[in-house]
Every structure is written in C-alpha cells, then in structure tokens.
C-alpha cells in the first residue's frame, strides 16, 4: 500500500552485506523487507538498537546506496530512474545530517569554503554578492556568528560543527532531511540546543525529517510518528504519543521498560531471553521470537506481517492477530 501523499516512500526495501571471505563468508540481512512512507511536514522517528538497520535504511532513503531489492520513490518517482537534471533535483530536495560532527566537515577547508561550495554549485547564475548573502543568512539561521566563517573545523566544538553541517544541508533548500543520530555524539546541554534548532528550522522552512536515533527520550520529544525496527524489520509504527503510552509490540514494550527513568530508583530490565542471535543467520519466523517472553509456536515458523490494528497504528506480531 503506497500513500499517494507521501514525500518519500520506501517499498519492500532489502539490503544485504557480506562479511568475511571464502569459507567464512556471511550474508547479513541489514534490512529485511521494510516499507515506510514519509509524509510532507512530519517528523518520522526511526528507532531501534544497534544492528537493526535504521542507519542503512536512512542511507537508502537518501539515495547514497542502492537497495538490494525494493523501491524508493520520491513524490511517486522511483529514484533509480532519475538521471541528469532530475537526479540533481532529487539531490537538492533530500539531504542528510550525519552522526559524527567531527567527521562531517572537511578538515582542510574553512567554514566559508564548505558552505559557499554548494551554494555556488546549485546557484551558478547568482552573483557573488548573492552567494555571500545566502552564506550569512544560513550561518545566522543555525546560530553561528558570521565572523567565524574564516575558521577551520577543528576550531569549532562538536555542537558548532553539527550546526554548520545542518547549514550545509540547507544550502540546497531541501524538503526532506534524513537526520542519522544527529545529537547522539553531543553533550546533554548541546544536544538540547541542536534539537531546538532542528525544531525551529522545521517550523520556519517547512521541512520534513526522518529522524533516526537510538535515544527514545529524544525521539519522543521531536517525532510525530515513530517506527521501531528490530533486526532489519519493522515491528511497530504509530503516532509518538500512542507508541510511548500504549506500545503493542513486545519488543517496543521491552524497549520502553528498559529506558532508565528519572523517577525510578532501580533499573527495570525487561525479561528477555539471551542476547541477539547471530545476525548472519537467515531467520525463519519472527525476528524477535528467540527473545520474546510471549513467543508461541507460530512465531518460530512464520514471519508476522505488518498489520493495521488501529487508525495510524501498525504492528507486526502474531499475538495481535
């Protein structure tokens, strides 16, 4: 089912990586059949623990890598078929902000150069004065003093580098920004600053975000809808308020129970069986069945499909069928 109003739609995306060589070659299914639609103007949170495939999905969504199978459509157009000017247009409309602010900027170019380069590339006919003006307004929009444009990245703090990275993503006037753990590497007080910036930019520029994070508290604060991934599959998709107050998938429930809480004075680990199975094995049945406290015989045999259980709420679990 493809939502015609979707800005970006991912259909049956699969991605595989091979690791090792020769006799020890393993195929890891990083993304194992995920379909998702991102609606204009929304913040869609994508959460999951390490190895769930959320970052891989983000890179596929933005067109950095092609999926092994499945289709990415931007405003209905499959991006695989885009070439030349259309491809450049897609590039402008969809941008990304990365996790590690220290690796996000080229170490040997000044801030000014790094921002002017895409400005000039995408607005070749504008004058130098117009380019400069755009540079200044972008720096102001992300809260960096324009006097700092002569500086090199190593002279900036992590939070400042991330702001410049956001400014750079904005140089193409995008519609959708895929933010891959944008605040995970930042300190708490800086994290709040950057999150506020992202919220403010969304309001002022009408942006749409795919917000990838492992930090549920952050996602709860910023997302409209949340998608939960586990071992390459989508477990649950619901509006943020619903997901955090009444999660239906056992994994989501476990996840929410495990988050440390300020109002608790002891940890409350969920009752899960032993840790993640080897992700290289081909899984039959529900990916979560080996750890799920409520697993049944059916769960071992058949993979549950993502089904709508309420308005806007989809869950992939046999227990709810």
């Amino acid at each position, binding site marked *: 089912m493809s939502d015609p109003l979707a800005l970006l739609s991912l259909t049956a995306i699969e991605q595989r990586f091979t690791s090792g060589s020769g006799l020890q070659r393993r195929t890891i299914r990083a993304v194992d059949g995920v379909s998702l639609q991102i609606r204009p103007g929304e913040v869609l949170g994508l959460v999951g*623990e*390490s190895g769930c495939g959320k970052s891989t999905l983000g890179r596929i969504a933005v067109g950095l890598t092609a999926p092994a199978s499945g289709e990415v459509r931007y405003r209905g157009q499959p991006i695989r078929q885009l070439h030349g000017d259309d491809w450049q247009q897609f590039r402008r409309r969809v941008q990304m902000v990365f996790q590690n602010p220290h690796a996000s900027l080229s170490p040997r170019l000044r801030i000014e150069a790094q921002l002017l380069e895409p400005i000039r590339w995408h607005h070749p006919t504008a004058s130098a004065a117009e380019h400069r003006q755009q540079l200044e307004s972008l720096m102001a929009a992300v809260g960096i003093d324009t006097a700092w444009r002569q500086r090199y990245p190593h002279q900036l703090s992590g939070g400042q580098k991330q702001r410049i990275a956001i400014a750079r993503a904005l140089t193409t006037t995008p519609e959708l920004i895929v933010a891959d753990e944008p605040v995970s590497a930042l300190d708490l007080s800086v994290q*709040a*600053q950057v999150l506020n910036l992202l919220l403010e930019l969304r309001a002022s520029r009408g942006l749409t975000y795919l917000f990838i994070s492992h930090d549920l*508290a952050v996602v709860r604060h*910023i997302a409209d809808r949340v998608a939960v991934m586990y071992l390459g599959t989508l477990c649950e998709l619901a509006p943020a308020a619903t997901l955090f107050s009444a999660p239906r998938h056992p994994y989501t429930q476990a*996840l929410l129970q495990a988050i440390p809480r300020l109002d608790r*004075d002891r940890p409350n680990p969920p009752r899960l069986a032993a840790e993640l199975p080897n992700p290289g094995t081909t899984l039959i049945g529900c990916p979560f069945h080996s750890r799920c406290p409520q697993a049944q015989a059916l769960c071992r045999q058949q993979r549950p499909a993502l089904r709508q259980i309420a308005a806007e709420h989809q869950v992939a679990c046999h227990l709810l069928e």
Partner: protein
Amino acid sequence: MTPLLEVDRLEVSLGRTPLLRQLSFTLQAGERLGIVGESGAGKSMLAHAVMNLLPPPAHISSGALRFMQQDLRTLDPAALHRLRGRQMAMIFQDPMMTLNPLLTIGTQLTECLTHPPAGVERISARAARVRAIEALQEVRIPAAASQLQAYPHQLSGGMRQRVAIAIALLHRPALLIADEPTTALDVTIQAEILALLTELCTAQRMALMLITHDLAVLAETTDHTLVLYAGEAVETAPTRALIERPRHPYSRALLDALPQRATPGQPLRALGGSMPTASALPSGCAFHPRCPQRMSVCPQQPPQWQGTAPDRQRRCHLPIEVDG
C-alpha cells in the same frame, strides 16, 4: 564510621594547568556514588586519579587520597599494585580496554588467580578454573564452562562487558569504579548490566563509583551524586534529592535540558554556550558566563561551599533557598 575512600581537596594537573580542582568527597563501604558531568568535566580523570593511575604527564598535584585508611599518594608501588585489582577495580566504557583480544576469556580470568602480584597467594590452575566459571555465572553468562574457550571478538558487546565485570570482581574488591560502563550498549542490555551491578554491589557489600553523563542512569543506580563542571565539583547531594530539587544552577540546567522533562514538540530549555576547557577557565565561578542567575559577584570570586547538611552542598554565590 571511617569512610572507605576519602578524597580531600584533590588537584590533578597537566603541567601547570589544573584539570581537576579542589575535589573533596567521601565514600562509605557499600555506598553507590554517581559522578555526573558532560564531556570535558573531568569525570574520567577523577576515576583514574582515585586509582592513582593517571596517564602521564597528568599527575596529582595536591590534596589527599586515602583508601582503606592508606594514603595512596605515598604508598609504595608494590603495595599499590596489590591494592589495585584486589581491593579497587575498574571497568571502562569499552570492555576491550580490559580484555586482551588475543587470549580466551578463560585465560584472562584464570591468570589473575594463578599469577597474582607479589605477596599474594596463588591458587592452582584447577581451582582457578572453578573460580572462573563461578565468576562468569555470577555475571549471568549462560553456559559459563564452554564460554571459557571463547575469544572476546566472539562475544557481543554486552557479554564482553559482563566478562569485564567478572574479571573486576574476581577478588571481591571493596570498591568498583565504573567509567561509563553502559554508554556504548543498547538500552535493553544497559538495563541488564545496571541491574547486575546494583545486585552485585548489594550482595558483596561493594562500594560503587559510577561515572556517567546520563542523569536517568544516575537516578536508578546511585545513592549519592557529585556533579562536576569544568574540573570542579559544583553540587553534592543524595541522588533523589538532586533529581527532584537541584540546587546549583548548572544541575538545574542539566535536568531542564532533558527531553524527559519537556513537553513534546516544544523547545527544550537549553543552556547556551559550552563548557570551558581547562586552559581557558573564566574568572571567579567557572559557570558564570552561562548561568541564568548570574550576579555581579560571580565573575569576581570563586564561590564557597554552602549547604543545609554535610551531604547536601553546592558551590554558589546565590543565597540558599529554604526548599528542604
């Protein structure tokens, strides 16, 4: 009751730049102390200083450090070596800082027992193996006996951290220092490891010094907290009291900035600026440039400790409010 660990006006310097200044706190046996602060505040430096294991050229430049009533600064190297690993142990954010990738975990566990430092009794290989299996079982590693043959790279991150904890606990230390032990782990594993640590501390009456940047982890696993900012302690309080009624403006700002404390969709109450580095400290109170309640005296004089109880203090010029 004499404290297990006494830190009195400790100063750690790199050359002439002080990285940690005037740190004082005590730790009782079995107590769980949290050290919280952002990156650059000096938390890891403090953990290493307490073990007297600072990486040169950083060194303790002044102050007292007493563990089990022994002065760690003047103790001879052999005695210090015996103390570390047996009475004091440490685990790190990356368990691979404890584990040797080239040895099986069985070897790493048993060699602590069969080749202890001078002056400590060694035990036989067979007894060591039994002890090693017990240690792994204590940290809830399934099929402990067969895991002795495993290499660290064959284990997941959470399992490795459990092994690191097992090694740290082999000699039943009186104090365990845990430097961001779960920061790199998934949230479900984090909860398990934190529950494990809490349980072991209670069962073995072991003191815990937990270093973290995560206030919620602090709430769940510590009794008392020390808040660090730019190399200094700014507030000390029982954890529950700190979380519910923080007294120092920085502690308040940290809690206010948490998404858990904000309304979804609304701007977070963010603190502007960033923490100064050790070589560029502001005059007077190190926090004053960012403080929302800054007064005229703040840039001029460093604040003194003030508080309602010995274990509930803060360093600030603001008058104490009567809020309990």
